[in-house]
């Protein structure tokens, strides 16, 4: 798995591009998730494309407008759109409406073990898998992100002024605790070990809470907003976009406080715009603002290979199949690459 980086920036196709399938859809790729060995990708015109190896991809018309968010629910795809629909879609193309908010956008969706959530404006709607009607969880400001913890017991809701963490108590009533920090919080995630909660903010900074004692701290120094981050190899690292390097904060042991991040540089000094973990490895896919995508080992910056070359458009989605055989890459101009990772 090595490519001579000195050849860059010649616009030769990478071997992944040569053997993969490249499409020019012409509308932004907004999201992608893996479902088993399938990848579902959402687009700005409301279509979904489902990729699997050995088959031609399938195109579904799901929403009337932009697909704003996507999650997986077992073997199904959940999507929210600017047409106000929250949909559940099976891999063979069956589309079911979970709900419809009319002119209000469905901004975020998530699922755990058959329980579904979405947010629209300031309200989170929670569908218990055994119930038809959702429970509404209200907040004072518009919701910036949603995330379950690994066990699905806690639901984090980021918003202006911090995060609300919802949990059902023993009598099955929803209880919330608040983690406050001034400012607007967007994407939110629990660490896989459940010890930390991280948000990316409207400013060029991440905020983190250690949940056992609510100690909070910032991870800063970014040149732009951190729009994408992911925990790597369980809770070994938090890899983040928002700089010309992929910034990887160590989360093992006592966590990142007082420790320096590892900065993985890429050729061309372009901003990193998307981060996707390579499952179970200390390795990441980093997508850049010029459309190029690299795979790097965090603890060995020399071990970086180029997966996709320059397209001129910001990488907005990367997803790898669960068997780690293939990846999907999409950008804001609708250029996509679907390719196997391993040499035959």
């Amino acid at each position, binding site marked *: 798995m090595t490519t001579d980086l000195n050849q860059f920036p010649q616009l030769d196709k990478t071997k992944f591009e040569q053997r993969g399938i490249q499409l020019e859809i012409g509308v932004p790729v907004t999201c992608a998730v893996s479902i088993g060995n399938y990848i579902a990708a959402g687009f700005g015109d409301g279509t979904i494309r489902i990729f699997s190896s050995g088959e031609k991809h399938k195109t579904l018309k799901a929403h009337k407008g932009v697909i704003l968010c996507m999650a997986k629910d077992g073997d199904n795809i959940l999507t929210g759109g600017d047409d106000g629909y929250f949909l559940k879609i099976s891999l063979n193309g069956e589309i079911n409406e979970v709900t419809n908010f009319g002119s*209000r956008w469905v901004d975020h969706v998530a699922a755990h073990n058959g329980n579904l959530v979405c947010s629209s404006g300031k309200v989170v709607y929670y569908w218990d898998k055994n119930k038809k009607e959702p429970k509404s969880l209200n907040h004072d400001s518009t919701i910036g992100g949603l995330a379950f913890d690994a066990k699905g017991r806690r639901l984090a809701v980021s918003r202006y002024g911090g995060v609300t963490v919802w949990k059902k108590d023993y009598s099955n009533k929803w209880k919330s605790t608040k983690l406050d920090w*001034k400012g607007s919080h967007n994407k939110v995630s629990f660490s896989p070990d459940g010890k930390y909660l991280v948000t990316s903010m409207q400013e060029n900074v991440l905020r983190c809470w250690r949940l056992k004692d609510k100690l909070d701290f910032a991870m800063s120094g970014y040149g732009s907003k951190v729009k994408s981050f992911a925990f790597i190899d369980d809770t070994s690292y938090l890899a983040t976009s928002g700089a010309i390097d992929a910034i990887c904060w160590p989360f093992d042991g006592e966590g990142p406080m007082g420790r320096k991040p590892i900065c993985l540089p890429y050729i061309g000094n372009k901003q990193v715009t998307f981060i996707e973990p390579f499952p179970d490895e200390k390795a990441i896919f980093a997508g850049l603002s010029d459309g190029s995508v690299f795979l790097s080992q965090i603890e060995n910056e020399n071990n970086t290979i180029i997966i996709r070359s320059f397209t001129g458009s910001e990488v907005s989605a990367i997803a790898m199949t669960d068997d780690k055989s293939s990846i999907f890459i999409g950008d804001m101009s609708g250029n996509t690459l679907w390719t196997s990772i391993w040499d035959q």
Partner: protein
Amino acid sequence: MENKHQVPVTVLTGFLGAGKTTLLNRILTEQHGQKYAVIVNEFGEQGIDNDLVVDADEEVFEMNNGCICCTVRGDLIRILSGLMKRADKLDAIIVETTGLADPAPVAQTFFVDQDVANKTKLDAIVTVADAVHLSSQIEDHHEAEEQIAFGDVILLNKIDLVKDENIDVVTKRIRKINPFAKIIKTTKCGAPLKEILNLDAFSLKRILEVEPDFLESDHDHEHDDDVTSLSFVSDKPLDMEKFQNWFGKLLQTKGQDIMRTKGILDFKGENDRYVFQGVHMLMDASPMGKWPDDKERSSRLVFIGRNLETMNLKEGFEACKSE
């Protein structure tokens, strides 16, 4: 590298009942061959049903950057980023603000948020004013005054219901607050859309083209908290360093009271014209090419805001003139 096509965004403001919804309905229904998205307030006057209408909740928040003026519209950042993912490209976006909202956070969002600034640009602030009620609204509500102060275009609406001499009175009142806005007199907001949208009023180039009322003005004082304007002209070149010191400090300390500034500056030893414009503390400035041969070089500067008379603006400006 990336093609920087920025969708123009018009901010539509004005008091309840002035005619904003009439204008929005025109924008959405007229056969103009353009694709416009309209971001309306959730408590808007009446429902407009259209796929291109987005509900917003006017969530204003402060940036954590220590600048007290940096309030921005969080909902707008989210909505604009969503609209930029659409398959069909928009020709323009119109943001309606409620009658009581301060338009400054909307304008500031375009200066402060990098993603918003990359993909969209503030085109103009359009204020719809009710010719019948404006005078009393200005007396009773500081928001009405502020909306006039921020406007690049003011649609003086419902003039069919007002006598000519009263229109003159209202127009003079507007001019006193805002000398550079273009005033369009309308009934039922019937101005051609090309006079309202895609004006590029925030581009520095436009400041050179639109000759505002740069007449040197003396402040005549009525109420302490009135929004007024002051302008200054100098035929003597300015000292760049002195000006930067004075103006920087002024915006830093008085930026909350200074709502808008615009100016064209002639610096000693510089061949280029310098053009700037600001909203509160945030400013955009750039050299704009050489002075035209047929034009006298001079520096002109306009302030719109509150308590301007306490800021010693005249003295400050005079002191910037080169030796």
